[in-house]
């Protein structure tokens, strides 16, 4: 008997996510987001998703602007130096999006609670905040040890987690950067908080290649449900050490998100044309993609 390959197409992988599910998209702020996957969800017209995140940005704003999202649980939605997340803002102001706020560290700890299989994360410092005034999923209780007022924060409990990484093998072993930053760290936590894990990678390599650095394999095959090869899968966000943020594309996005009309045009011209992700990359063109690459001399 042979070992099972978990290689999947982007379309099949996106179809795993069902309307109404709790979805976590990897990365942090405007870094290393699984954008190709998010665009595919838009193409497939997913509806009524709950985005569960730590610090969210364009990946959430895109899905909100495309009408895929009815609720978001996070500490931040914005585009950092590219400004406010305007689809998010419009939807929140229009009342079509339920916004459930958490402090940043607690938003992260919710995934640790899911990873550890504990029914809540205990938090000491929420008294007096708008968080506990408006977020009724957080339950106050008295500490069984000290008697002090504490808050039980619910686990993140995503139904599906999707992250974009550098490389993996067909069995679902996925390697991470040796020198990490928080966007890589949060992805690692994300992928341990859920039992349906979809990983898009820049490149599928052989198992033999992966075994050269088993210490860098932070997602072992046992945790991966599907793996998809998606070059430039984080575009227009960056992938540390592989390619930079496409600042022009990001600014185009920010501008387009200014009104519902211009954003509809953006989706029509950028996301919906035939050809899926390959078509998206073709439209960007070789010169532009190559200009974003990071290169260094091989060791």
């Amino acid at each position: 008997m042979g070992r099972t390959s978990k290689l999947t197409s982007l379309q099949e992988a996106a179809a795993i996510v069902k309307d109404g599910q709790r979805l976590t998209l990897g990365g942090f702020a405007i870094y290393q987001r699984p954008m190709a996957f998010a665009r595919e969800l838009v193409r497939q017209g997913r509806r009524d998703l709950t985005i569960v995140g730590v610090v969210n940005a364009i990946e959430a704003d895109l899905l909100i602007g495309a009408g895929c999202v009815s609720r978001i649980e996070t500490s931040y939605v914005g585009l950092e130096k590219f400004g406010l997340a305007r689809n998010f803002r419009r939807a929140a102001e229009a009342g079509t999006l339920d916004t459930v706020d958490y402090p940043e560290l607690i938003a992260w700890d919710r995934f640790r609670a899911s990873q550890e299989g504990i029914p809540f994360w205990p938090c000491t410092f929420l008294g007096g905040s708008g968080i506990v005034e408006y977020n009724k999923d957080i339950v106050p209780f008295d500490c069984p040890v000290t008697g002090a007022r504490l808050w039980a924060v619910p686990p993140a409990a995503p139904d599906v987690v999707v992250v974009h990484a550098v490389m993996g093998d067909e069995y679902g072993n996925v390697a991470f950067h040796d020198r990490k930053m928080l966007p890589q760290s949060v992805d690692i936590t994300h992928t341990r908080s859920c039992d349906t894990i979809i990983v898009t990678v820049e490149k599928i390599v052989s198992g033999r290649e992966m075994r050269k650095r088993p210490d860098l394999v932070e997602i072992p095959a046992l945790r991966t449900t599907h793996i998809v090869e998606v070059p430039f899968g984080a575009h227009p966000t960056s992938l540390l050490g592989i390619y930079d943020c496409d600042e022009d594309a990001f600014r185009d996005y920010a501008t387009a998100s200014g009104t519902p009309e211009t954003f509809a045009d953006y989706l029509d011209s950028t996301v919906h044309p035939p050809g899926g992700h390959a078509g998206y990359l073709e439209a960007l063109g070789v010169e532009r993609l190559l200009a974003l690459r990071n290169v260094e001399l091989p060791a």
Partner: protein
Amino acid sequence: MSTLPYTIEELITVVLAKSFKDGEVGFTGLATGGAAALYITGIPLAAMEFARQTHAPNLTILLAGWSINPVFSEIRELPSAEFDSGLQNLPCEAQMETYPGPYAVRRGDVDFGFGSGVQVDRAGNINSTCVGDFNKPKVRLVGSILLPEHMTCFRREYIMMPHHEVRSFVEKVDYVSGVGYPGGDAGRQALGLTMGGPEWIVTPKCIFEFDRAAGQARLRSIHPGIDPHDVLNSTGFAIDTDGIPTTQAPTTEELAILRRKVDPHHALIPHGGE
């Protein structure tokens, strides 16, 4: 056993292997020294690799809990130290560098593990902490280690007892390091335990399984060549040996796979003459 064309370890290895399903994740700690090493590390590793080589190519091995899917052809002897450069340099698919690591124990990522203790009782509780009263022990042992997690967070546990003696198979353990089925499945439920528990007790003489409703160990099979009275006399709680089948012997083909493909360097378990 010497009259059989296989060792007792080979017998147990193949029986264990057949109980693993494709796609499962198996955890083995690293015990050192003699029979304990054999039953807690050697046999489990051989069984998991046998399963991978036969019906379960997608089974995941967690060696010493942190070397994931090691390359067996590189293992020339059982590792004797959990955290040294020898084991670190053993080729494998992934390594756990930090706690918490790349698998989520308390989400139920581990399908089965292998544990042991100085005592096991009728309900499947095991004890690695002390003999006698905890507060004034006759013999103080190492402590509970990971056994609480083995018996509640793993989806099932194989209790591996290298010595099948009355003093180890007791009516009630002196200290519950790992919880079995006190009061049966309902009892576990009442204790707030929603997952896991012992599956088998494996000894050089026989294999026990559990009547989970009653919360009692019962014989599943007696190894070839073992007298049922020997099993009765070695077990400190009441069991019934009537009609218990003989443990299924490995086939010639299975032995060939075990000896040639799984453990070609005879690093994991003793093998019979060929």
